[in-house]
């Protein structure tokens, strides 16, 4: 555990706005922010995972999306557009005096194109959370991550330790490349989630020159 206090280099003091917890702010010494996406299908445990690692209570923000409606009976010949609100949960992790990591939970639906462009931009990579009992639900998620050119690792979120799935079965079912890391984790556990993230970042390091 890094318990070294984060010092404000300039020694500036700021007045905290009324009603705001001063702990919400990033240290003035932080010069770099990094972003990693935590991706997965509905209810796979993205927010739980982020909550286990985040130093702040996970925050929720909304993005309004224009998406093609599923109706095909449009007489004008153009796809109907509907506006949908997508919730994004994210957390923050101060990793050193000058570096903060943001973890963004990102829904794995193909239809949220704009959202994905926004999320993928500047992301170091993606951790794909997988439920071993619902492997097929992860296919479109993996497709999407690959489509946006993001490097990734798989974290098998096993709530039930008695239901262990062999790594080979999961690799085969998800059609993974041999060097794609597959980690087991319990998204409710900080250390276990931290190890899954480390496996991803180690993999990312092998992919940059």
């Amino acid at each position, binding site marked *: 555990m890094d318990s070294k206090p984060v010092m404000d280099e300039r020694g500036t003091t700021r007045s905290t706005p009324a009603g705001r917890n001063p702990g919400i702010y990033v240290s*003035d010494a932080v010069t770099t*922010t990094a972003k990693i996406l935590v991706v997965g299908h509905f209810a796979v445990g993205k927010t739980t995972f982020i909550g286990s690692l985040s130093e702040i209570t996970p925050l929720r923000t909304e*993005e309004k999306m*224009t998406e093609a409606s599923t109706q095909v009976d449009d007489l004008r010949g153009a796809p109907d557009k509907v*506006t949908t*609100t997508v919730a994004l949960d994210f957390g923050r992790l101060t990793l050193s005096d000058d570096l903060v990591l943001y973890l963004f939970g990102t829904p794995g639906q193909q239809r949220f194109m704009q959202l994905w462009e*926004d999320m993928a*931009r*500047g992301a170091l990579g993606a951790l794909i959370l997988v439920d071993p009992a619902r492997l097929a639900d992860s296919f479109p998620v993996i497709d999407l991550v690959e489509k946006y050119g993001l490097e990734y690792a798989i974290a098998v979120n096993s709530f039930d330790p008695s239901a262990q799935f062999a790594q080979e079965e999961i690799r085969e079912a998800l059609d993974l490349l041999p060097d794609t890391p597959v980690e087991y984790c319990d998204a409710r556990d900080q250390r276990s989630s931290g190890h899954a993230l480390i496996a991803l*970042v180690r993999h990312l390091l092998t992919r940059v020159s």
Partner: protein
Amino acid sequence: MTRPDEEAAVTGHFVRSYVITGGRRLPEADELSLHTLVTLAPDAELPLGASPEVREIWELCAGGYLAVAEVSAHLGLPVGVARLLLTDLFEQGHLLRRAAPPRAQLVDRETIEKVLHGLQTRYG
């Protein structure tokens, strides 16, 4: 993003966003990414006639650095709307930004090494 001429489902929420932004097109993510840090510039003075939302951003950002996504979440504004208002304040010189990632989707080795080191120190 929804343009005013589109037939979007008009909900109360939608109308609120539309009023806050004056119906302007929302800026591209390139300009202020979700994890860019922003804070109020020293000696910045609240523009006359600032909207309630701008006042809220002003007050929040006076306290220190926060990522664009955090400003959006703390104030309950959709990301696109928060980004537009922050972009305005930035262009008017009221806001400082830091740690803006490169525009190109470049992942630099040094940052990854620092992230790995930080995670290993905590959980390794």
